């Protein structure tokens, strides 16, 4: 059993050291002999045991005695630990690749590949941006949510659907949005945009967005792109928003008039209530094929959710 552990450990160390490479070869020979039910005649395990004991004995005689007595059981324990840790390591890599977190989709906690947790951060609803609290992932749903009144960008026939809940003032939404746009465009997916102001000052933009889409659904997407790309400190400035409306080809005055209308306020409130039915707890939240992804993920994670592991072949 010791040979197997030694082989794995020495193989890794052998990347950096020639002497360990030689030992790894001996360990491999020992492993091959063991798996073919032949005795390990090279004395490799004895050699390594002696080396380890020689090291331990200089620090603790009692430790060396214990190690000598229970070497085989300890080897088994380390073997199972190795198998377990290997499983979790491989699982972590797989999860990171497919969900952007070593711990699974929308899960926080330390991940060596994302040590700052950027892929799982989000702006919490009704709280200041950023907030990294975790909501209940399992409750996220599109069931019973009427997406009819929201901006929709049609995709190819039989296109898969992407639903993006985001806020112009949220850095994480701003990071995820361009990727979602690119993804929808590349794979011809249908994109539904649900604006949810996680900051009070951007409530006004919900109404502007609603009115703009009502005025011209095509131009809306250009305005949306501009709002996500614009300097977020200026989003409170109505004059600045008017400039963006004009730049996207809207009649800015008409949109502004609509945004201040009582009827618009009522509709927007209805829409925000509809968004809350998804039980989302932060932005960005992206629903792709009934899977909810909270926080800005790497592009590949969205692509895998949409097209599967082999997305890059399509």
């Amino acid at each position, binding site marked *: 059993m010791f040979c197997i552990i030694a082989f794995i450990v020495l193989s890794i160390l052998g990347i950096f050291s020639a002497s360990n490479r030689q030992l790894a070869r001996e360990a491999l020979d020992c492993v091959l002999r063991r798996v073919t039910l032949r005795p390990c005649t090279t*004395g490799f395990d*004895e*050699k390594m*045991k*002696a*080396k380890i*004991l*020689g*090291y331990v*004995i*200089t620090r603790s*005689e009692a430790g*060396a*005695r214990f190690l*000598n007595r229970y070497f085989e059981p300890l080897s088994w324990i380390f073997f199972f630990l190795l198998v377990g840790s290997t499983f979790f390591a491989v699982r972590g890599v797989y999860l990171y690749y497919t969900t952007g977190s070593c711990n699974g989709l929308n899960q926080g906690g330390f991940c060596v590949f994302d040590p700052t947790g950027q892929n799982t951060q989000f702006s919490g609803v009704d709280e200041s941006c950023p907030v990294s609290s975790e909501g209940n992932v399992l409750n996220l749903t599109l069931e019973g949510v009427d997406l009819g009144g929201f901006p929709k960008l049609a995709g190819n026939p039989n296109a898969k659907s992407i639903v993006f809940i985001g806020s112009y003032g949220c850095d994480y939404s701003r990071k995820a949005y361009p990727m979602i746009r690119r993804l929808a465009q590349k794979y011809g997916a249908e994109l539904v945009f649900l604006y949810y102001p996680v900051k009070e000052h951007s409530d006004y933009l919900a109404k502007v967005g609603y009115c703009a889409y009502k005025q011209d659904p095509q131009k809306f997407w250009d305005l949306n792109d501009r709002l996500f790309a614009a300097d977020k400190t200026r989003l409170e400035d109505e004059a600045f928003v008017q400039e963006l409306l004009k730049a996207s080809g809207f009649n800015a005055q008409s949109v502004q008039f609509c945004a201040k209308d009582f009827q618009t306020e009522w509709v927007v409130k209805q829409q925000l209530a509809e968004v809350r039915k998804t039980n989302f707890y932060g932005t960005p939240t992206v629903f792709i094929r009934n899977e909810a992804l909270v926080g800005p993920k790497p592009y590949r994670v969205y692509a895998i959710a949409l097209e599967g592991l082999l997305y890059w072949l399509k």
Partner: protein
Amino acid sequence: MDIAAKIRADFPTLEARDGRKPVIYFDNACQTLRPRQVIETIQRYYQEFPACSGRSMHRMAAEVTREVDQARERVAKFLNAGRKEEIIFTRNTTEGVNLIASTLNWKTGDVILVSDKEHNSNLIPWQMVAKRHGAILRIVRTCEDNTFDMEAFEQALKAGPVRLVAMGYTSNLDGVTIPAAEIIKRAHRQGALVFLDAAQTVPHQRVNVRALDVDFLAFSGHKMLGPSGTGVLYGKYRLLEQLEPFLVGGDTVSTSTYDSCQFLPPPEKFEAGLQDYAGIMGLAAAVQYLQSIGYEAIEKQERMLNEFLSEGLEEIPGVRIIGPSDPRLRGGIISFYVEGIDHHRIALMLDQMANIAVRSGQHCVHSWFNARGVIGSVRASVYVYNTLEEAKLFLDSLIKIRKVL
């Protein structure tokens, strides 16, 4: 100040390096460490006159020729040989044994006597002679305590036409030195030649080939502070003249035609091809170094260390020392095994724990171990630069190992 303290600074290997403690080198029976004087001599050859000896006429070649000649002379005086032409430079003791085994004019039925604890180098060549020439290899049993059994030897001598007595002068297994002078006297009385494998003798005690009247004697440079891959075969000149050449080719002949050649006299006819001139010069430097220390000091240091180590080992439960109980009969070698503990494990742990280098296994004396059913042993072999402090640390480490295993 003891001799070890005086000379240790000459040995760069004994310095601490890479953050590790200095090595405690107890594997001197395999090969010794080299003093700076030897290393610098080798370096001098490569830096100043890396040329051929005896062949070319330029100044560098003349310098090499002179150095090699001086080396031969120094070795001849060192052994008290009759003339320097009796010294043949070889790669090691094994080559010396093979040279004799391959060049003596063997006849079917010739008897070769060897002891029962010979190094493979002084056993296998004679087995091959027996196989090729129909000679008979006869084993002379040693006493219970591994000392030489003169009675058994006498019986073996008288039992048949002994052509050659080939004995290890000092055993690499247990350090026991045989009574060579008496053996040679009795062998000669029966008309037999005597070859001595002196690999473990020349580094540790004075050897006077003329006083011994030995016919052939071989030893290695690397066991006596000299460079690796150097050795010497001594042979009485009249006997060397009678031997056929061993390896042949360049430097062994004075002239040649397409179908014949004229061999040079000894030693040239046995030194084929370009030699290890740097090694030969280094060997001479090692001889000079040994002479400057003196054998009395070497023997005294080894005896003191062996007595101390033997006494300490005997107190450790389960330890069995191979050879006579009197450490004065074992030179600088202490070969032992611990019942129930693998000898390799002990050696590896000593290395890991305290950077102590010892040999473990059957030390190329498989025949002895196989005949007695002993799996192997740990061999600590000390030399003049080893100290009492090192011996103490060795024993302390061994005691710890015994407690743990």
